[in-house]
């Protein structure tokens, strides 16, 4: 197996990252934490879109489910946030399984439409059930560590990102991962060779949703406030842009995209609301002219 270089590189980079809190002030550390959150989100979305060819618009919604599950449990019932995050992953995974079973039989467009609808339903429920979720005001949640420091959260997110990447790598480079590729390349040929197309897609969807739940849960406890901005189409759009700009269907693409766009967005924050417009235009041009993203441009050289 070609596993060795991946783990070496991952350990090396994660090891270098460990020293970052020594050099960076709180603001820059915050930016890196956000980058790591987006790495988790974009990489897990890429599992679905890049490796099985199914476009889900509910990835942010599943992050929201993770965030609200642990948020409600820890804020209202006083459950330990770590247990809350774990339950958030489970709930996101189970709901992902349900949505997957429901619409992956039809595949393609049906999944995209249903997930868009699903994320809209979730949004409506969260804004309407004010008593439980505190609606658009946001739900105040306790932190994951006793005394709140950026560097503690940095290590939590670093661990989260490493775990996510290892799970994804293992999955993609297993037999199941070969099935993903086969289904994406030619559904009928894969089915004729005995690949259960629906089951492969449902598996990818479930894993991807559960990982979004993990990212969302950690994110909520980092911000200390869970708002409907997490399960929003704006976040979905950011994650999608990062993946597309970085390079969909490649392992490092979403990682590069997440860092590139988050750092870029800090620079153009001065333009306020319009930075989404700038992102959109960049993403549109990239998607149109460089469908393989930044990774594709680098490889072509």
């Amino acid at each position, binding site marked *: 197996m070609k596993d060795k270089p991946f783990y070496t590189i991952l350990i090396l980079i994660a090891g270098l990252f460990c020293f970052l809190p020594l050099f960076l002030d709180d603001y820059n550390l915050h930016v890196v934490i956000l980058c790591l959150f987006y790495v988790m989100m974009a990489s897990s979305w890429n599992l679905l*879109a890049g490796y099985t*060819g*199914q*476009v889900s*618009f509910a990835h942010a919604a599943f992050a929201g489910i993770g965030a609200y599950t642990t948020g409600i449990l820890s804020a209202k019932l006083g459950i330990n946030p770590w247990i809350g995050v774990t339950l958030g992953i489970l709930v996101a995974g189970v709901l992902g399984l349900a949505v997957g079973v*429901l*619409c992956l*039989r*039809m595949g*393609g*467009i*049906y999944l*995209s*439409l*249903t997930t*868009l*609808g*699903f994320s*809209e*339903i979730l949004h*409506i*429920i969260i*804004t*309407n059930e004010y008593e439980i979720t505190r609606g658009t005001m946001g739900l105040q949640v306790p932190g994951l560590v006793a005394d709140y420091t950026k560097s503690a959260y940095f290590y939590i997110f670093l661990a989260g990102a490493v775990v996510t990447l290892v799970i994804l790598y293992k999955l993609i480079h297993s037999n199941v991962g070969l099935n993903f590729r086969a289904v994406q390349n030619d559904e009928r040929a894969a089915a004729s060779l005995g690949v259960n197309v629906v089951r492969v897609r449902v598996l990818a969807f479930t894993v991807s949703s559960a990982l979004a739940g993990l990212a969302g849960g950690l994110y909520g406890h980092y911000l200390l406030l869970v708002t409907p901005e997490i399960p929003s*189409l*704006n976040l979905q*759009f950011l994650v*999608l*842009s990062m993946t*597309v700009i970085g390079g969909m269907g490649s392992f490092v693409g979403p990682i590069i995209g997440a860092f590139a766009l988050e750092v870029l967005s800090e620079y153009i924050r001065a333009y306020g*609301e*319009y930075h*989404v*417009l700038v992102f*959109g*235009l960049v*993403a*549109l041009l990239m*998607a*149109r002219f460089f*469908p393989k993203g930044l990774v594709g441009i680098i490889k072509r050289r």
Partner: protein
Amino acid sequence: MFSLALMNGIVIGVIYALSALGVSLIVGIMNVVNFAHGELYILAGYFSFLFADALGWNIYISMAAAVGLVFLFGILIEYTLIRPTYGDDMYSLILTFILSIVLQNAYLFIFGPYPNKPPGWVKGATNVFGQFYYGNQRLAALVAGVVVIAAVFIMLKKTWFGKIIRATSQDREMAELNGVNTKWLNMYSFGLGCALAGAAGVILAPVFPVTPTSGVPIALTAFVVVVLGGMGSMWGCIVGGLTLGLVENFGAAFVSSGYKHVFGFIILILVLAIRPVGLFGRRES
């Protein structure tokens, strides 16, 4: 209450049907779902507002100009964004999704977050069947919606262009073999689909003012209608649109108004679980 919900349901149902027709037409021919459908609906609303309010044009001329411009914009979208993705359904989804966010933010930039409303066509209210008073503008929207839908059906059934549209959505390759220029057809039918979104926009804008994101629920409902009626089925759009309009308004009147848009999605989930091809859909070969 009952008759008012019925009336509201029919009016909004016709508009749903109209905007779903646009989505369905494009799906039937190109197998592409245009996620920017709602933003084109809004664009037409803004254009008609701009022409009628800022430039002082006659409202009917403004509406026609708005729909015409959206048609041209649709052709431009097809030519620049959709054409390179032929054969890759997923990529067109991503591109139109990004386009919808870009357009929303562009509207925010240009028009601001405030609701804009073109002037109404008619004033006052009419007593409907001695039950309740109903705004004339809404009644006019109902009539206009029915007229446009009828025009689309006549075009599809009676004209040469409608014939090649039906032929291509039944069997693309056979249509090509019989000399249909499908590239050309794609471009014009995409424009036409967008123009139908625009028509729905100009009809509904005087009733429900447009904001940069107010197209999202309309587009989502149109997608639900298309799945409910069956991908690519025109009659499915009519039945699905009316069903959804009625369910939403009865649900809002008798169950909970906050959950108005959820009822439609519950129907979507039921359809997917019980009959995924939709009411009028045909199974893929």
